[in-house]
């Protein structure tokens, strides 16, 4: 929690002012019962006889104090809400920015759904806890201290009741807190499990239905759900003791104070007015302790969330370009891999890529073929430096990719990712993503090149058609073509298509490749494909398997030299020659 608090930043002064105001408010609040005791002891039971004037005077003083306290309270609420809202704003921005700086590896580490939960659910938890805690954790300790001072001032002997009660209360609350904590953690783990299982079910609902596993899934859910319920009950059982325990101590104090206080009054050591203010203070002292304990409970609730947020801030960003030369730009569209080895994480046993050597000249078209898991996507990810090599060098445009500012490198290298996504907005806005400054003509040109113009124009709203979240209203093949258009509008020197036409029919696929060749000559193109047809006219074709390049050459060369390639080619075309 403390670590997250440093993001208070420029709102620190508001926070301090708010605390001062709260302190003032509490001082006045606490002083009121004291003044009241004077009314009774001097105004009514005074040695000089009853004094109505004094009563009214003291009444006015108390009203004044309470008004001041109220204004302090209102002001502190204003300032505190500024500090609180500002803090939350800072924290949100810091988190979001940090994630924007994440490399692909960092994102893989957390996974996307977990990042989403952290920034929404955990942030909400954290915010709620922060609000309560700041409201209570400043006010309550002050109230505790000031009222305790008052109690001690009125009668030190009677205050010994608190000397007994406070430690008992603190130890008791601490024990409750201590026992509850692991139980709550357990419960939250169970809840996470339940949510994960539910999400899995929802994602696979079609499978559930096709295999008629509704009942099976219901039973599975019921078990996990009951586990959450039982754990919740177990955890709450402890917390339920909180208030009764607190009340017991408070009532014991009241009885003890009544007994000893009563005797003191009889002996003339205490006045009736003092006794009455004493009773008021008992409530204040013990209430503030209860507030402190329930705020601490809130912190326990938020503890997991805080930990999960801290993990984001602690994550070391593994790809940075701070030492790069900001002036350096790609000289040409060449790509060279020199003895590249790559693994996704240091702990991984096997290399994703081993001993990769490639030399691609500017303007060449390169095809990559190979079974799933052969390392095709890993290989192309190194070109725009989405990941860093483990060993060896990737040289793009004449320089090691690590020498460029990331912006300069990625500006010229466009990747159409395998799992590409569109965003909420119009088609035009989505294409403009590649280059926000492009004109409408350029958008249309890119779309034509990606063979998307035809279907876009078939929509009633054309380029103004709204894409819903994750593009559910356009078909898979249409999405892929929009993603290609988005890449092309960047006018990159190098374009990489990672199985980007898998949902596009053969015919359209061919037309896209033709268009690229005609209109964007000079651009280096890398195509990962399943179909030999998609890459057979490439300048070079790489066959990959198990993270290595196993064959390399043009279509004709490979037909002669590579059995694997020949097999693949024949299995895809066989029978059509008839």
């Amino acid at each position: 929690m403390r670590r997250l608090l440093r993001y208070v930043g420029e709102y620190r002064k508001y926070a301090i002012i708010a605390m001062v105001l709260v302190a003032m408010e509490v001082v006045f609040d606490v002083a009121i019962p004291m003044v009241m005791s004077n009314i009774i002891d001097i105004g009514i039971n005074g040695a000089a006889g009853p004094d109505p004037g004094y009563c009214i005077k003291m009444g006015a003083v108390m009203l004044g104090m309470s008004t001041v306290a109220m204004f302090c309270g209102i002001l502190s609420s204003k300032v505190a809400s500024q500090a609180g809202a500002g803090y939350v704003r800072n924290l949100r921005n810091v988190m979001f920015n940090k994630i924007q700086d994440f490399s692909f590896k960092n994102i893989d580490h957390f996974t996307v759904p977990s990042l989403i939960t952290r920034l929404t659910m955990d942030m909400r938890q954290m915010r709620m806890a922060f609000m309560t805690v700041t409201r209570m954790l400043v006010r309550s300790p002050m109230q505790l201290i000031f009222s305790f001072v008052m109690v001690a001032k009125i009668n030190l002997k009677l205050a010994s009741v608190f000397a007994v009660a406070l430690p008992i209360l603190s130890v008791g609350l601490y024990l409750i807190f201590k026992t509850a904590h692991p139980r709550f953690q357990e419960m939250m783990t169970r809840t996470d499990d339940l949510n994960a299982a539910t999400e899995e079910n929802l994602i696979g609902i079609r499978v559930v239905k096709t295999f008629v596993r509704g009942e099976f899934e219901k039973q599975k859910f019921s078990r996990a759900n009951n586990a959450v319920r039982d754990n919740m009950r177990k955890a709450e059982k402890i917390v339920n003791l909180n208030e009764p325990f607190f009340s017991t101590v408070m009532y014991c104090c009241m009885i003890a104070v009544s007994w000893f206080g009563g005797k003191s009054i009889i002996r003339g050591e205490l006045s009736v007015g003092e006794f009455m203010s004493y009773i008021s203070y008992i409530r204040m002292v013990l209430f503030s302790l209860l507030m402190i304990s329930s705020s601490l409970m809130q912190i326990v609730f938020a503890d997991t969330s805080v930990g999960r947020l801290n993990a984001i801030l602690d994550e070391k960003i593994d790809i940075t370009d701070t030492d790069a030369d900001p002036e350096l730009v790609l000289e040409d569209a060449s790509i060279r891999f020199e003895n590249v080895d790559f693994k996704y994480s240091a702990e991984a046993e096997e290399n994703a890529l081993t001993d990769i050597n490639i030399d691609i000249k500017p303007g060449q078209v390169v095809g990559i073929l190979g079974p799933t898991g052969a390392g095709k996507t890993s290989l192309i990810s190194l070109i725009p430096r989405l990941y860093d090599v483990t060993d060896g060098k990737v040289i793009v445009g004449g320089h090691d990719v690590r020498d460029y500012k990331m912006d300069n490198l990625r500006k010229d290298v466009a990747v159409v990712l395998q799992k590409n996504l569109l965003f909420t907005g119009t088609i035009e806005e989505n294409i403009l993503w590649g280059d926000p400054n492009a004109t409408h003509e350029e958008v249309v040109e890119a779309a034509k090149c990606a063979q998307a113009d035809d279907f876009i124009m078939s929509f009633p709203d054309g380029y103004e058609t709204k894409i819903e979240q994750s593009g559910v209203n356009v078909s898979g093949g249409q999405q892929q073509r929009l993603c290609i258009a988005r890449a092309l509008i960047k006018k990159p020197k190098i374009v990489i298509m990672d199985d980007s036409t898998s949902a596009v029919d053969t015919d359209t696929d061919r037309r896209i490749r033709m268009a690229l060749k005609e209109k964007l000559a000079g651009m280096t193109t890398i195509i990962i494909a399943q179909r030999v047809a998609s890459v057979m006219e490439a300048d070079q074709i790489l066959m990959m398997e198990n993270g290595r390049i196993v064959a390399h050459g043009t279509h004709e060369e490979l037909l002669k030299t590579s059995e694997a390639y020949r097999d693949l080619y024949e299995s895809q075309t066989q029978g059509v020659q008839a």
Partner: protein
Amino acid sequence: MAEERERKYRQRRQGRPSDIKRTISELWSYLKSYPGHMITMVVTVCVSALTNVASSYFFKPIINDYVVPFIGKDNVDLSKFAAMLGFMASIYAAGVVSTYLTRRVMSHMTTGVLASLRETIFDHLQDMPISYYDGKTHGEIMTYITSDVDTMRMLISQTMPMVINTLISIVGIIVVMLRLDWRLSIINIGILILVVFVSVSLTKLSRKYFSQMQFLVSQLHGFIEETFTGQKVVKAYQHEDAVTEEFTGIVDDLYNIDIRTGFLGGLMMPINMNLSYIAYVVTAVVGALLCINGTQDVGTIASFLLYARQISGPVSRMSQQFNYVMMSLAGAERVFTLIDSPSEPDEGDVVMVNAEIAEDGTIKEADHRTGIWAWKDPQNGNALTRVMGDVRFDNVTFSYVEGKVVLDGVSFYAKPGQKIAFVGSTGAGKTTITNLINRFYDIQGGSITYDGFDIKRIKKDSLRSSIGMVLQDTNLFSGTVMENIRYGRLDATDEECIAAAKLANADSFITRLPQGYQTVLEANGSNLSQGQRQLLNISRAAVASPPVLVLDEATSSIDTRTEHLIEAGMDEIMKGRTVFTIAHRLSTVRGSNAIMVIEHGKIIERGSHDELVALKGRYYQLYTGTLELE
């Protein structure tokens, strides 16, 4: 972009309930199943409220009867005083016990109600038609089970006892006050009315900002969800600054609203506290004056002073909760609307049963798995007919959304054991056909029959059990590889699962996994490659071994060489079954008995591979891009 999202989230996340009465009565139906808990709660809450009221009253007799008369006297008999305190202690004890019981009972009941709500939601989701899931993200549906149910926790466990407590306390205090002194009571009641007025108007004022805040928060969450889902794209396109700018925009709006809601929320406490101090002060002064003129005693004032502080507390606590109560009610309303929405229709009565064929050819129902199934038709005296896998589409018309025809007069038939393939460009309607066979959606025109029965006459569970589907999206579940394969048939033995995996050529990669078949798959099998997941998918269908098989791009991520390897296994799996195949790859569909070429929801060509190639039409075009280029 912003308006689009706004529209969406406004629809989705209304911060305010629209029909409170209905929601509460729905909620009541859940609470009703805990009658003992409810009664206990009402009793204990009343007891603890009343003890709380009584606790302040005691100071009047203590001061007036046991202390003041003895001031300055020696050898006072304190036994009565002690007895009085003993009585007080027993009342307090009753209060403590009832507070504990309230907590205990409410906690038990709330966790129970929430759990059964979650279960009802989940169960209902299992019964919802597939069309419900279209166009909704699972995150969106998840919120019903997570945050919506969760906001109801406070509503049930705290709000109800609090309302009762507040009412009893206030009535109790007013009654006691009036008995003590009507003059001081009027002052205090007057201030109580003021407290109520201030609380109500502050709540009203803050409600506007509160729902604005709710709205912005959901907008923010929507933005985060979308951006992070596409985070890799954001990075690859260096769009970080643009999304950050948009994010900061929403955060700034939220900040401005946050300040206002925070301020208004924070006002209640100092103002009401001050009002309660005013009550305290005025009581003290007026009380003192009454004492001086002899019409009141100090003990009464002592009790009154405590009541003056006590009376406004419940009101401001309750009004502070008001916004959250509204929020929970809105969540509850969403939940109940979901629960009340209609489930998938299932009016069929023909069921599939295990069957045995006697030597004379008659079919008998069997009580165990025989690998042979029969349809049992209750409208025909429970006559049994063997499940063959004869599927016919007759002039089928279908659209997902009214007016947008997806299938237009599609007719075809698959005789038992035939392999039928569908090819065509994306969006042509191939997957739709398979979705209709197992009745994920209902058709608008024409008919679909299965072994002569209209599929609407067949009970859904039976229909779907008879059709094995291997879908393009590979969904695996957390658990071991073995458990995932067994998902196809829950009573399959380990040996049968392994045999199925061998058929699908999955055995070789599974045995290489660290724990073989006992390897635990992470969420949706993310520790496997897409191709491996598809192999598991096929194993799952193989172990189910149903009469009809649908392969929807089942091997799309399996490289051609592996596909070659599993060919023999696939042939074995498909043997004797009716098979519908959808594939992009020619090699996958080539061996089919008939290939249907679908474009724009119509079958435009049909025939065997050789016939279609000879036809040199669309099929030829689709699969010969390669040759034309040469």
